[in-house]
Structure formats: C-alpha cells, structure tokens
C-alpha cells in the first residue's frame, strides 16, 4: 500500500463527490429535508402536549338557577390537564348544526344540555346527550374516554356537594330527635353523623382510586422522539449513500474510461479500495455529524454527548462502522450492478427499502412481525439502535456490549466479502 496513491484516490473522490450536485443532494439535502419535515410536519412542536378536544355544545337550559347549563360550560372551559385546556368549546344554537359539524369532522364531540338540566341536577338526576365523532377509532377513543373521565369527576364532585348539603340538613333537622353522640355499635366508636357521611360518600364513590404519574427512564417526549428520528434519518442516508459508494467504486471509473489508466499505473487495487473507502467514510461521517447538529440545534432533538463517557465513544464508533458495512454491501452489489445508472438506482431502492423495513426509519414494533425479522438480522439496525440507546436513552455499556461485538464482527465479515467482490469486478472490467 502506498499512502500517496491512497490519498490521491481519497482526495479525488472527495472533490468529485462535493462537486456533483446529485451526490450533494442525496447525501446532505435529502436527509435534511426528511428530518425537517419530520420535525415540523409529522412531529410538530405541539406533539407530546395533552390533547385538547374541540367540543360543540348546545345549551337548552335557560334557567337562572345557581346550577345550570352555563355553569357546566364554564366548568368545561376551565378544565385542564397538565396545564393544557382539555376542551375547546364551541356553542351551537341547535342540535342539527352540531351533528352536521361532527359528521364533517370539525368537532371531536358534541354535548346537548337539555332544558331543566340545572333544576334536575339540584333535585335529582339530570340527563345529558353526548355525541362522539367517529372520524377515526383512535380519536373517537380519546374523545369518549376524556369525556367519560371528565363527567365521572364532575359526578363525584357534585355528589360530594350533595352529601355535604344533605348532612347539613340532617344535622339541622334529624339531630333534633336523637342525641349527637348516638353511635352505631357495629361501627366502633363512630358517631352516627360520621357514619352517615361515610355511608353516603361510599354511595357516591365506592372506590377512591388514586393516580400517580411516574416518569419512565426513556421519555417519549418530542425531543427524545426527534433524537430517535435524527438517527433514523442518518441511518437511512447512510444506507443508500454507503451502498452507492461501494457499488460505484469500480463501475464509475470504467464508465468514465479512467479505470484502465488507473490499472496501468503502479497504484494497486488495494490503494484504490482504501482511498475510495476512506473518501466514502469521510463523506458519510461528515453527513452524520451534520445530521446530528441539524437534529439537535434546528429540530430540538435530545442527543446527549459526553466525551468523558466511554459509552458515548462507542456510540460514535457506530458511525464509521455503519459506513464501512454499507460500503462493503455496496461492493457486493457491484457484482450485479454493471452500470453507474443501475448501481445508483439499486443502491437508492435497496437503501430506502431497508431503512423502512429494518427498524431504522419506522420503529420495528410498528412493522408486521415477519418484517421485524429484517431488523433483527441486519447489522445496520443493530448499529443504529446502539447509537440511539446510548445517545438518546442514556443506556449503559452493559446493555449494548453484546450488540457492539455483533456489529464489529458482521461489519468486518461483510467488508471482507465486499473486497473479494470488488477484486472480481475489477478483473472482469480489466479483461473485458
């Protein structure tokens, strides 16, 4: 191996890549567009915030009682979940317009507050009609269960108010006829009043379930989702660009007419291979660095890097390893891709298909179980997952160690097979 020859190939390829508009588009512009679209269209800044339902309300309760339809609307308007409004209320004059808007997908749900709602609520049980928009099952489920939760809480609140009122009246009138310290023997030392309070509370809310929020180690908030997708975009681009670098290595020189001149020089096929591989790895490394900066600073992805942490360096090592792996696979692809056009097309098609089916762009659990196998056996997915686990989800070395070994071994094996393919292709072109 002669370093000046390796360097000559490397510099020449770097210059040609950076001067080719098509290469720059596929390596830098396309993943940038993809990531920006993801960050601002598919995962807009509102993602991760509580859902606000758009609710249409027809209020037919015109009474002036302290409890009426307007009070219910006020409560709906004031309801919040983690600081965000639960409902955006739109008032309607009649039921038919409300139903039309639900059918048109303009409302998540509708509430019809009938006449005498407040009066019935005070003296007994009030009725409400709730209409759930079935735009899709997921949004219908969210709307129905949000409204059910809301009315359950409201019912409980109203029941407690009614219990308090009832106990006040019991105290005022019933205690006139029995001593205040009268107790029920079967219930220990409880006073009769306390017993009544607990009994009525049980009628209103037999189970008092308490809810506590626990933050998981891997947060599914927007920054971490974007961190995940930044590596997805990076991986996707690495896949087809790496394949392209590998598959074009010999055929591009042949079509340019430069291959024979190179073969007639003292530079060896190893010099050419190393120079071109290095150029490919430099471009892919620069692309990865650029994508991470873009993800973190322009899209708001959470990717933590600590140079004092061994795991973070292992995550960084995954970048050249994926580059090498894909270049090796590209060299294998050159056995069948016999022109620049077919090599480019095959690389893009295979690269994109792999990105979408191997758990690189879409999480593998989104995919059908038979398709998940691709991600389980593809070393590129292992490498991307290692980088994600460490840099986005802060995984310790012990969690990824085995996968790191698998990635190193499989990359070395595929690159060696790629070298054999490359030598064979070179000989074929030289002898043709």
């Amino acid at each position: 191996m002669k370093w000046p020859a390796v360097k000559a190939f490397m510099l020449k390829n770097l210059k040609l890549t950076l001067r080719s508009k098509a290469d720059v588009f596929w390596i830098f512009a396309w993943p940038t567009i993809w990531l920006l679209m993801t960050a601002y269209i598919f995962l807009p800044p509102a993602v991760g915030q509580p859902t606000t339902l758009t609710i249409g309300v027809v209020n037919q309760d015109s009474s002036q009682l302290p409890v009426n339809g307007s009070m219910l609307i006020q409560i709906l308007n004031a309801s919040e979940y983690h600081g965000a409004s639960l409902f955006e209320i739109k008032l309607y004059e009649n039921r038919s317009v409300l139903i039309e808007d639900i059918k048109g997908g303009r409302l998540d749900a509708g509430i019809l507050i009938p006449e005498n709602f407040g009066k019935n609520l005070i003296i007994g049980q009030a009725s409400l009609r709730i209409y759930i928009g079935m735009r899709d099952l997921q949004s219908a489920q969210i709307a129905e269960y949000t409204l059910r939760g809301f009315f359950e809480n409201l019912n409980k609140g109203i029941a407690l108010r009614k219990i308090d009122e009832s106990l006040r009246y019991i105290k005022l009138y019933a205690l006139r006829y029995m001593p205040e310290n009268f107790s029920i023997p079967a219930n220990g030392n409880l006073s009769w009043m306390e017993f009544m309070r607990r009994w009525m509370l049980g009628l209103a809310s037999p189970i008092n379930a308490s809810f506590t929020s626990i933050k998981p180690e891997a947060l599914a908030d927007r920054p971490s989702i974007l961190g995940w997708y930044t590596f997805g975009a990076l991986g996707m681009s690495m896949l087809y660009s790496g394949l392209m670098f590998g598959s074009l290595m010999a055929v591009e020189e042949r079509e340019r007419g430069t291959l024979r001149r190179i073969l007639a020089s003292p530079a060896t096929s190893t010099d050419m291979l190393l120079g071109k591989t290095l150029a490919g790895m430099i471009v892919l490394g620069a692309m990865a660095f650029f994508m991470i900066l873009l993800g973190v600073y322009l899209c708001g992805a959470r990717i933590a890097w600590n140079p004092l942490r061994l795991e973070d360096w292992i995550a960084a090592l995954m970048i050249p390893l994926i580059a090498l792996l894909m270049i090796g696979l590209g060299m294998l692809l050159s056995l069948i891709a016999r022109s620049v056009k077919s090599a480019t097309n095959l690389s893009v098609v295979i690269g994109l298909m792999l990105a979408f089916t191997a758990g690189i762009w879409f999480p593998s659990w989104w995919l059908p179980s038979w398709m998940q196998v691709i991600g389980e056996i593809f070393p590129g997915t292992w490498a991307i997952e290692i980088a994600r686990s460490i840099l986005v989800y802060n995984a310790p070395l012990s969690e990824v160690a085995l996968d790191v070994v698998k990635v190193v071994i499989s990359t070395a094996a595929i690159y060696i097979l790629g070298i054999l393919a490359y030598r064979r292709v070179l000989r074929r072109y030289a002898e043709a």
Partner: protein
Amino acid sequence: MDPPILSVKNISRRYCGRIAIENICFDVFRGEVLALLGPNGAGKTTVLRIVSGIARPDNGYVRINGLNPSDPRARSLIGYCPQEPIVYDDLTGLENMLFYAGLYGLSGSEARRRCMNLLEFIGLSDYANRLVKTYSGGMKKRLSFAIALIGDPRLLILDEPTTGMDPQARREIWAKILEIVKEGRAVIVATHYMEEAEQLADRVIIMDRGRIIAEGVPEELKTRYGPRAVILLKILDRHAEVLDALRGIVSEGEILEEDGEIKIHVDDPDEAVPRIVSRLLQEGIKLEMLRVIRPTLEDVFLRLTGRRLSE
C-alpha cells in the same frame, strides 16, 4: 546492444472464443518508437492492454525491464495513454494531473512542480485551474498525453494518441513524442494513421486480424512489400469509364479510387505513365493532374491484405 525495455513473447488472447491476438512477438529498445499499424479490430489495443498490465495473455509473456507488468514496479516504468479520455471532467487540469501523480507516489510540492512542468510542456499551463469539462476534445487529448508522462516513464505506450485531433494539433503531439524519444525513452504507439506511423516510427509492425503480417523500418517495408511507385490521377468526370480503361492496361498492381483521385500501384512507372496517358487520350478523357509518388505504408498494407487501413 542494450537489452530491450519491453519484450513481448508469443502472446495470444481470445475473447469469447474469438481470437483477438495470436503469437505476437516483438521487442522495444530505448530511444526507439515502435508503431503498431493496422485497421480497427487488428488487435493493437489488446496488445497494449496486455503490455500495460491491464489484461493478461492466455499464452506467452511480457517483460518490462525484466519484470512482469502485473508487478507495480514494472508499471511504474510505463506511461499509458489509452484511446478513450482518461480525465475527470469535474476536476481541473492540474487536479487531474495531481491525482495521477499520486498514483505514481508523487505528492506535495514535487508533484505540483512536475504537473505544472508537464502542463507547460503540452501548452495547457494557462488552463491548469479550469475544470476539464470546459476543455475542447483536443485539449483533453493533450492532457491525457501529459498524464502519460507523469511518472517519468521509460516506456510510453500510446493508443491512437491523435485520433480526433486537427492536423495542427496532431503535428504538435508528434513533435512532443519525438522530443521525448530524444531523451532516451522508448515509445510504442498504436495507430491506424499511416502518416502517424511514418512520421514517428523507427520500426513498424503491421497487424491484421490479430496477427503480425509485417515488421521492419518503414522504408524497408515499402521496399519489401510495396509497389515501386504510385501513380496519382485526377480527372474531371467519367470515373467509371476511366477505371475500366485503366484495368485493361495496368495488370501488375492495384487500382484504387479515393476522394476523387485514382491511385495505381506500379512497379515500372517509366513504362506505365506513357501507356496510361495515351489510353486516356484515346478515350477522350480529360486529365486534370497526374503525379508519380513514392509508396506509403498504406500501400504496403493494401499490397499485403488487399484492404485499406481505413476499412
């Protein structure tokens, strides 16, 4: 006598069962230009590819200064300029040169100096920093020629070096080649231009259908295989009648019509010219021009194969 810089011994090569070259054998010595002359498909390029170490022969062997061309040390002694362009359109002329300089182990200021000298030598120094895609076809050919010289080769291998060039540019390249030979380098040039072989070559190998059919210095080949003289006729019209009339009186040589001129190979021009003129006068054919010229290698090829080089 110095040992040859290049020895080619009985090399043969087949492609898909078809003979490309068979039993090719020759040597090239320092300070010598050897031309491989033959029509397209004669096997010249195959010979050069094997000599350059790109392809391997099925039989026979090649030695460059005693080394097999598959050895990088042997390839460091040669400068190969293939027929097709060998430059990258998206690099400048200088960047192209520097790339190839790197393949010969040159780098840094030494490489840059050598590249600039060569660009100066072939008259492209003013265009050194322009992208090659802005170059004309002739400029690209000149750049390819300069690239062949980048490793300071002892053997320059040129495959159709002036194809597609205008006559002026062609003469300039010939002059450069002769300049290089004066420095003691050897040159092997494949061409189908008879004039190129005559201008450059100390020795000529005539190839046809993968085989060597004649070898020697140009004058010797003409004497041995060519006619003694060629009569060149230019007539105004009635070409078909003229050809018929001439066939009746010239029996010893070939008669060819090319670009409105008629060429007749004769062994005794003193005897043939009066006969031809009187016959044409008898027929009432007006003669515009008649010249007796020396035979060329084209005439040798015609004599040997019955075909023209351009066929």
